[in-house]
């Protein structure tokens, strides 16, 4: 069966006004429907720009040569309004997201925009706020929330809408580790249940590890695109461009440097733990 792509980017280049080089440079990227794709790359590598292109907030330099398809439909000035309704973006800075006077209004905004009837809207707002643990704050002004609370509300606003494509741009960067796991778990449940697609920009290695595919972006170009374990095995490449490698690789290398040799065949944390325990018990 041919896998269906919910997003297809073909030769997409984008240059910001007055910039000397493109922020996204001849990018080709296919995102399978129902998948969880992480985008990683250093600061300024073009990650947020890619998501703005997918959402049609900006248009590529040369519309003749570049094409973006969302669920099989080409993104054009005519289709952008309808296509955007299928996409929910949580921006890097939640302050750029808030429009409502209260938390509840804010979460309702996306629903109003999509013409959801009032009773259904009220139900969904309540559910989304409960999901992210912010039901006590429904009447609070968004600007009076803590950083992590703002991120939770921004995510609720997207969950309420049930978009086909959820884009999370560092959406959990201000959450404590337990809170981050909880929220990602909720998004994942919804993704599986409704066969949604998630595109997640993150520097959190555990979140990256739990995705189906990882896109490595460097200076606007796609350097690698594969399953997490395959990506992470390129430790040299990742280090060169300043990205993290999983902790067990760091332990392995650090032990080697300290004169404790570890077989290079070891490719998971469990294998390393088992190896070290065996080594110890043989002594």
């Amino acid at each position, binding site marked *: 069966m041919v896998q269906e792509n919910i997003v297809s980017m073909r030769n997409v280049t984008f240059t*910001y006004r007055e910039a000397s080089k493109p922020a996204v440079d001849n990018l080709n990227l296919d995102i399978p429907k129902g998948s969880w794709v992480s985008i990683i790359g*250093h*600061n300024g590598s073009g990650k947020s720009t890619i998501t703005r292109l997918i959402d049609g907030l900006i248009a590529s330099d040369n519309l003749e040569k570049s094409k973006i398809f969302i669920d099989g439909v080409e993104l054009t000035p005519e289709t952008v309004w309808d296509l955007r309704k299928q996409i929910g973006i949580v921006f890097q800075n939640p302050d750029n997201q808030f429009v409502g006077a209260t938390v509840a209004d804010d979460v309702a905004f996306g629903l109003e925009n999509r013409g959801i009837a009032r009773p259904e809207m009220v139900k969904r707002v309540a559910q989304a706020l409960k999901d992210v643990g912010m039901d006590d704050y429904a009447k609070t002004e968004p600007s009076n929330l*803590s950083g992590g609370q703002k991120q939770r509300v921004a995510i609720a606003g997207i969950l309420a809408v049930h978009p086909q494509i959820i884009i999370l741009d560092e959406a959990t960067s201000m959450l*404590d580790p337990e*809170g981050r796991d909880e929220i990602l778990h909720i998004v994942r449940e919804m993704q599986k249940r409704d066969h949604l697609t998630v595109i997640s920009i993150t*520097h959190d290695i555990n979140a990256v590890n739990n995705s189906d595919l990882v896109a490595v972006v460097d200076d606007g170009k796609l350097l690698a695109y594969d399953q997490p374990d395959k990506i992470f095995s390129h430790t040299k490449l990742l280090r060169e461009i300043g990205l993290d490698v999983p*902790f067990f690789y760091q332990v392995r290398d650090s032990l080697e440097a*300290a004169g404790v040799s570890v077989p290079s065949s070891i490719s998971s944390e469990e294998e390393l733990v088992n190896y070290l*325990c065996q080594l110890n018990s043989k002594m």
Partner: protein
Amino acid sequence: MSIEFKNVSYIYSPGSPLEQKGLDQVSFKIKENSFTALIGHTGSGKSTLMQHFNALLKPTEGEITIAGYTINKDTSNKNLKQLRKNVSLVFQFPESQLFENTVLADIAFGPKNFGYSEDEAKELALKWLKKVGLDETVAERSPFELSGGQMRRIAIAGVMAYEPAILCLDEPAAGLDPRGRKEMLELFKEYQESGHTVILVTHNMDDVADYADDVLVMEGGKLIKHATPKEVFADASWLTAHHLGSPTAAKFAQKLAQKGLQLDDEVLTLNELTQALKAKMKAGEA
């Protein structure tokens, strides 16, 4: 001279239906030239506490002594300039701190405001632009036309450029790429070691283990622990009870222990883990 909070409470919108307790009877003392990590859950009061260090918020109750100032509810907003030169805060969302037309002007604003000449300020701005890992080509660009991580670096440079004695950082590494995060934390550590006080809000327990010598833990507006990283992370059941995590190296050591390899020392960092494992293996060989 130390920084001291004495029974500090803070209430947002007192007397209104939206009244909300931010801080609840917080007392502690931290030494100058220390590196203090401030941790706790979403909404626990970390940013509220941070804004008290330079009197952006003033205690509803209680008193703070810092950098020769005493701050309480009656402290007037006049004459706070010198305090804010000495005690500076990098906000949780850095965009809110940027406002000039160019990156260079933005970083130079602080030094100029605190008495440096135009030329000195520009020089300092260029120096700090490089120190936070950006190159000169962004100097003349608008700070609002940068990526999230680049904006954060500029907000950090803008505060460090006038070298406050006490540097308060509210999740400064959120959104930084892994290399940037490491470089920036090394920069803060270096800053502390060269004779400044650093207070850092973070959710990253590895940063706490790697860099801090003192930890404040907040929960529901209360200070629930003040101890060294070793002490905080030693008590596994306390951590679990308060939903706090451990550093990655400590978690790895736990996995080893579950499979029968018990290390001799408590380890919090990659380096400690490596040394403890090495000691174990060498002991076996002997």
